[in-house]
């Protein structure tokens, strides 16, 4: 009799837990769609292409935030992709033993540092350095590109992109490392046996095998970068504008919610922020889901 009750309780607990988790995901979608209805009715699809964000005149367009998010995230994914994949190649194919473990651990520990600490370091160390050294240097040698011209403030797209680069680096390195390690050693040894150098065996055997996993890692990193809030808010300058210069201050979808949600005074303003949140959710879900699928398929075939 007592066993029966215990069993019922356990079964219920497990089922309720699962339902709560699924309900949370559904609630997120329903809540964001519901709350952003006002903004959607007011601007419909033009919300995505209006580049004015003017609470006083109640005109809300998300384009500057989309632009800022895409620019900083792309910058981060290109840099972190190169550094992360390069590092993982060195970790997997060159290093052995303790050194491999320790260096791998150092990179993974980066993921443990809280976002707000990155932001703090960003405004007091990275941004001043950029203003005094980094940006003048870029301007001197690459200033003919509109990307590296304009006033050098320290805070802006470049600072945001660099902070994101550091923050998504551990994700990309860890997953690339796992998928490269999952390449069957027979294949690599086979390549060595027919006289390939180490790099050739990586390029022609290891890489094709791990390709979808690495693409998954990059998508996952991109999804992280898109959703990252506090660190970016602290260094991006928070000005909704679309300019070609990486030195200029910008704004991202996540940071506008962080900054303006508590001070949004009228319903249309709040609703517009919810709609920005909805776009943010859909973007990260697409990249996260896609990445998970690729990494999952890769680990299946391995």
């Amino acid at each position, binding site marked *: 009799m007592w066993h029966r009750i215990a069993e019922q309780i*356990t079964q219920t607990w497990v089922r309720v837990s699962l339902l709560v988790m699924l309900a949370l995901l559904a609630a997120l979608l329903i809540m964001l769609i519901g709350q952003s209805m006002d903004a959607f009715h007011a601007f419909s699809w033009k919300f995505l292409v209006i580049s004015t964000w003017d609470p006083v005149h109640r005109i809300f367009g998300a384009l500057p935030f989309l632009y800022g998010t895409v620019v900083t995230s792309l910058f981060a994914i290109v840099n972190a992709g190169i550094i992360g994949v390069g590092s993982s190649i*060195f970790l997997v194919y060159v290093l052995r033993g303790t050194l491999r473990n320790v260096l791998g651990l150092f990179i993974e520990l980066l993921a443990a540092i809280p*976002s707000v600490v990155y932001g703090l370091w960003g405004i007091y*160390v990275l941004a001043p350095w950029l203003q005094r050294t980094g940006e003048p240097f870029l301007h001197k040698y690459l200033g003919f590109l509109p990307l590296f011209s304009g006033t050098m403030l320290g805070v802006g797209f470049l600072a945001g992109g660099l902070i994101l680069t550091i923050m998504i680096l551990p994700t990309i390195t860890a997953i690339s490392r796992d998928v490269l390690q999952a390449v069957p050693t027979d294949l690599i040894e086979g390549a060595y046996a027919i006289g390939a*150098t180490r790099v050739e065996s990586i390029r022609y055997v290891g890489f094709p095998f791990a390709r979808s996993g690495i693409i998954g890692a990059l998508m996952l990193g991109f999804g992280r970068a898109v959703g990252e809030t*506090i660190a970016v808010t602290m260094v991006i300058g928070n000005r909704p504008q679309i300019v070609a210069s990486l030195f200029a201050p910008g704004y991202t979808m996540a940071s506008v919610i962080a900054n303006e949600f508590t001070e949004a005074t009228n319903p249309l303003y709040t609703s517009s922020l919810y709609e920005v949140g909805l776009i943010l959710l859909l973007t990260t879900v697409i*990249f996260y889901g896609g990445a998970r699928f690729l990494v999952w398929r890769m680990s299946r075939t391995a």
Partner: protein
Amino acid sequence: MSQGIREKHLGLRKAKNGLFLSVAGLLLLIAVLPLFLIVGYVIQQGLPDLNTQFFTLPTEPTGMPGGMGNAILGSLEIIGFATLFSLPLGIGAGIYISEGRIGWIKSVSRFAADVLSGVPSIVVGLLAYVLVVRPMGGFSGFSGSVALAILMIPIIARQTEQALRSVPSSIREGALALGARRTQVWLKFVLPSAAGAVITGFILAFSRALGETAPLLFTAFGNEFWSTNMMQPLAAIPLQIFVYALSPYSDWQKEAWTGALILVILALSMNLVSRVVERRRFR
């Protein structure tokens, strides 16, 4: 390669090999550098002010000696309640995803847990605002706990699921053969033998919640005074760091660094502890 190996080519190929690998090595050095730059600077800036006053005094106006005592207390309270919600729900969902009978529900739930763990924390803050802050009529520590719990549930569920999956099925079969019920198998055989990894997952979720700032901005909101009332706005360490960092006062900025040092020490040590627990499991 199909042309066969000629001496001239071999030299070129070896040079390429060397060049490529040194570039990869250089990239690895670049990747490791930020950890030392950031942690080193946080220690250098934060350590001088790390004293008992920092733990015992609340926020004070600039110019007066102050600390983060209220924020430390608030953080403990918010995360304590978040744990209370998320631990049973996360482990329960993890058990279902691993041990449940219906295949497609398991796959869908696993995918849902993945997606949920990828949702930006600021969006989770919006959900907590609509679910808790608005109905309650104001910012509160409780709503902060809900937000953090939503972030912790998928992490704990995923880690539990993976931990349970690594338990050999012979244990389940053996227990069933002895006449144990399915739920008894979960609670008395599978869960205990995966306990180490489940704890690891919890520690990781906890340390992530400890550093979260964005979802607390419009839930817990922050508070300058001593408070333990979960129904009122409550201070939290990361929120305090955020506010202090953006303030123009140098003594507040110093406290922000000390707060950051505490967060970094906690986050890194929890991460290392979870690794030790994890490794012990495989021995």
